[in-house]
């Protein structure tokens, strides 16, 4: 077999594996178009600085 194809086969297999891996991953906590989709599931504790706690609000108060 041509050397060029020998290189391409593992590359294609690896790429396929990476894509499969990502597709099979559970959707993480961020998603577009859903209000506060992220912030509802974040793990920012009450003792964190204000600027971190405010990331969980819509800007209308903690």
């Amino acid at each position, binding site marked *: 077999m041509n050397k060029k194809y020998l*290189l391409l086969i*593992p*590359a294609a*297999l*690896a*790429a396929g*594996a*990476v894509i499969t*891996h990502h597709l099979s991953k559970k959707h*993480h*906590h*961020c*998603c*577009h*178009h*859903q*209000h*506060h*989709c*992220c*912030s509802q*599931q*974040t*793990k*920012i504790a009450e003792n*964190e*600085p*204000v*600027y*971190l706690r*405010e*990331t*969980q*609000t*819509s*800007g*209308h*108060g*903690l």
Partner: protein
Amino acid sequence: MYYSNGNYEAFARPKKPADAAKKSAYIVGSGLAGLAAAAFLVRDGQVPGNQIHVFEELDLPGGSMDGILNEQRGYIIRGGREMEPHFETLWDLFRSIPTLENADVSVLDEFYWLNKADPSNSQTRVIEKRGNKLASDGQLTLSRQAIEEIAKLVLTSESQLDNVKINEVFGSDFFKSNFWLYWSTMFAFEPWASAMEMRRYLLRFVHHVGTLQNMSALKFTKYNQYESLVKPLIKYLQDHGVKFQYNTVVNNIVVKQNDTQKQAVKIELTVKNEKQTLDLTTDDLVFVTNGSITESTTYGDNEHPAPQTHPIGASWELWEKLAAQDPTFGQPAKFYQDIPEANWTMSATCTFSDDRIIPYIQKITGKDPRSGSIVTSGPVSIRDSNWLLGISISRQPHFQQQKSNELIVWLYGLFSDQPGNYIHKKIADCNGQEICEEFLYHIGVPENQIAEIAQAANSIPIHMPYITSYFMSRQAGDRPLVVPKGSQNLAFIGNFAETKRDTVFTTEYSVRTAMEAVYQLLDVDRGVPEVFDSAFDLRTILSALYYLNDKKRLAELPLNQVEKVGLNAFLKKIHGTYLEEIFKAEKLL
């Protein structure tokens, strides 16, 4: 109008447009956009200066470009705009504007020479625990997941980000990173700000990812931006005969429409409380600055907070009147209504006349604020401040009239809804002395000295109800195009007009929209410099990847076995190629 890049178009001068001599121009607002529009009309459009009229509501020009010495209150800076080398239209303009001191030296020359001699370099970007440098300062501390979220946002088409907010696309890992702390405090992004705008910033400034930690990419004017940029520009325009009309409120611009065309036919204005109208023909060009981030600004003093009033003011009212005539003129309410309570609305200018705070500034910045060099290089942010207080100290003197014993510090608090750590009040409820005391507390001044030093200083609280309105979440169409479809003689300029790819809250955006407006309405036959193209430069993208991972090579990235196999196959494939050379040059290999 078309975009260009490179020296060929940059150094060329356009021919005089047909009918330029017949045209008159009416510019609403004398902020940077309005002044730039006048300058491009003169320089590139070759419209006679005395046919250009600038209407300004206030009794001085400059819009949001600061600062000023107010005889009653003292030195006032509402805020300065950060600037960088790739503000293509801004520098295209200021290469032609002489400095006040020497007509043979342009504003760009002065700026260039000064920043060569005194470059920006922040030694401390973030402090906490009363004046101590954040242990991880200098690193972006992004997790893999956070980097993936950044990549996902960048790869999302702008059309899919209508009304999406930043805290809807990022998770806790991202927000806990220094990247977000640097990013949000440098550009004034709140978590609920527009993800669309955040994406534009990520792309527009991707070439600065490696300098977020030390802000070495920033450049600064000699004095405040009013004195170093606005005043020379005003002189240039006055020298060319441009007419300025102050204390003039434009109440409405009547636009006549048919199926395909829109034409401004009348300006309704109030000049010193007297109503007037101005009839327009197609040879009369109208440039409107729609909206303003410093509209309805109020000031306090050492003993009094700034009044918390927020009428929408003339610039927003005018935009509303225009929007009511045509849906393509945008949705102004989207930007000024429902501004979150927690938003940044307050800044303060503190003037110190004695040396007592110098050691604390030196400890943080490593620089002597009296040396004449840049001190903080943009903001120093206080991580554990409930107000997320930021400190900025420019080259001193920051004002030409400033005395040698005076030190001017600009403060801003990104969260307005929380009591301070030392002063248990919301920043908006504080007088100047109280804001100064909170600042002194955070930089480590002993508590028994705080009140005395703050009392001796002169601190002006400044309330700007619309200061972050550029970043309100929005959708396509909320901002009118610079020249709306079918418009014959009406253009929108400034940071609430829509142009492709560029980022608001910048001087560049003001000048770009002005240039595009003039070039379109006058049909100036020269390319408008495109937004800097770093987002299309593979070298820059790879370099950003290197810095986002805190200077890790590809082999050092936390990859799983499958990914490692994929990476090795890829590296094998590019071995000995041009791609490998680029990856090596950008330190990824």
